[in-house]
């Protein structure tokens, strides 16, 4: 089928205007033959080119349709429906009534909605820890401490465990009579042995810490793969200048890692918005009160527990605005790397 793409074969500098041999694979033979027939039946150069384009186009369409269908039916349509639903007043199982922006008005007046975004802001305050703890660990591992491979494997282990499992595990570990408090009492820090999941501030702190426990290994791995791209010459040259290993890392390697740090920051930010659901579900269910209520969990409870689907969709739209802005950075990076160069 090589002759089907004259515009590209020219670039190879090979004689292209020759009859195409029918390839032997029986499965594609029929397809290949029909192509050849089209090729032979065409005479004038212009119409030939036009006709030759068609099978390529058909194949192209056939290849992109399944993926586009999946994306449209299971992501885009639900998003549009979520927006439409957010304009309807729904009460339990009654028929929905069109209500313009009533759900949004009710959402902004709802103190729990404000609390959920305030809690999210409090979680964001811990972002520097999320960014620099894995960086420091990656640097410690990168300088080839004894057993660095084992540390790398162990640090990534928590990320592999399902967040719902992590949540249930930590519900026991953080219980008032659980091992954390037993340890704190043992080392003489009895005043710190509090109800980790049941205090107004301690619950959100615990939730964030568990999320960090679950997520930091991915950061270590991300930084390590970034560090491995630093050219050896850079490190070698700095060493010849008499720079100590640590000065080297901090003054030379870390600035080179800026893109990785940026990427990891975006990833952490989006995870804080849309990755905590199973942890909240297992650890606190948004409580005590609404101390650990985050927007993504509020969408769930409003929709499925209070059966207020319209308002749940409106809160979902508010969350979507934030999640989309953050993810757009990831998409931009992915597009730059994966698009065909012209």
């Amino acid at each position, binding site marked *: 089928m090589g002759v089907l793409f004259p515009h590209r074969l020219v670039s190879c500098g090979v004689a292209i205007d020759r009859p195409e041999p029918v390839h032997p694979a029986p499965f594609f033979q029929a397809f290949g033959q029909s192509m050849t027939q089209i090729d032979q039946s065409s005479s004038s150069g212009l119409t030939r080119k036009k006709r030759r384009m068609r099978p390529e186009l058909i194949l192209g369409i056939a290849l992109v349709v399944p993926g586009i269908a*999946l994306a449209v039916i299971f992501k885009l*349509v639900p998003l549009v429906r979520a927006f439409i639903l957010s304009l309807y007043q729904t009460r339990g199982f009654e028929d929905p009534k069109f209500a313009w922006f009533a759900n949004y008005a009710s959402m902004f007046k709802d103190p729990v909605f404000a609390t959920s975004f305030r809690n999210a802001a409090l979680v964001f305050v811990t972002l520097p820890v999320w960014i620099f703890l894995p960086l420091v660990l990656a640097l410690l591992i990168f300088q080839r401490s004894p057993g660095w491979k084992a540390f790398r494997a162990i640090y990534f282990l928590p990320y592999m465990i399902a967040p719902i499992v992590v949540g249930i595990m930590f519900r026991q570990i953080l219980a008032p009579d659980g091992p954390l408090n037993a340890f704190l009492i043992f080392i003489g820090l009895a005043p710190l042995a509090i109800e980790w999941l049941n205090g107004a501030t301690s619950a959100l702190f615990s939730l964030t810490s568990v999320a960090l426990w679950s997520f930091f290994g991915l950061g270590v791995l991300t930084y390590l793969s970034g560090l491995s791209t630093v050219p050896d010459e850079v490190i070698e040259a700095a060493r010849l200048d008499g720079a100590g290993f640590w000065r080297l890392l901090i003054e030379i390697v870390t600035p080179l890692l800026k893109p990785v740090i940026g990427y990891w920051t975006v990833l952490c930010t989006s995870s804080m918005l849309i990755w905590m659901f199973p942890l909240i579900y297992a650890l606190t269910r948004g409580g005590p009160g609404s101390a650990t209520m985050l927007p993504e969990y509020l969408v769930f409870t409003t929709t499925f527990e209070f059966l207020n689907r319209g308002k749940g969709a409106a809160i979902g739209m508010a969350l979507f605005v934030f999640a989309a802005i953050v993810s757009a950075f*990831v998409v931009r990076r992915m597009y730059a*790397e994966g698009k065909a160069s012209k």
Partner: protein
Amino acid sequence: MSLASVSDSVPDEVAPGSNPLLRTIVKWLVTFILVVVAVVALYPLVFTVLNSLKTRTGYAQNPLGLPVDISFENYAETFVRMDVPRLLFNSIITTGGGLLLSTVAALFIAYAVTKLRIKGGNLIFLFIIAMLVIPSQVVIYPLYETILDLGLGGTYQGLIFSYAAFGLPISTYMLAAFFRAIPDELIEAARIDGAGELRILFQMMLPISTPAIAALSILNFVWMWNDLLLPLVIMGGSDKTTLMVGVALLSGQYDVSIPLISAGLIVALLPVMIVYLLFQRQILSGALAGAVK
């Protein structure tokens, strides 16, 4: 996992002029920090394994220590209470189906937009990866409605299609980025030799891209297997639900003891741990690190 021995260590890399005593202290301090973090990372898993081996009374008498007499009764009970064989089967079917469908769809699109150079190929690529901005939490109820409207309520297909759609952006991106690195000349040569496009895709591109497919399969396997929200809403408490929903619902039952739920947790995370052991080289090499959901 390969708990690498000390032989992996390389001579310390501190500046040549520094004090040897200071160097030793720094070295031990670094190792100490790394060990403390490793203990924190491992302890919850160890604690859960230990509890899962205790009897109910054994746990009541000694909740934090080592099990006195090891018992597997919790595993036997969790198999019945959670119907583990059934849920395991459901998880395998839905994760496997989602994985396969999302990889094949991504393979097709990546090939079409990078190697066929169809008109608007970049636009299609952008459209697919832009779907990343739609998280499942935002659309979960309308997604459920859409699945019901398609007559897929309570079927494996509903969850499989959802997994595939949510795995598609990252899969397409990884394969497109990989295909871009394959020189066009290679494909032109195959075309001149008379290979059809589908043959090029399946007999040439597919074998070359095994590393990329392995990386995205591991990535998709982990999040699909571990996901809670999609199966919880789409399958609910039906008998087609997944292991993660099973363990979440079991942990909510009032008469469930901690040893019993611990056994359930271990059963739920075991398949992922096996994958981690088998593919740790691919996972830890960082092939996945740059491209995570």
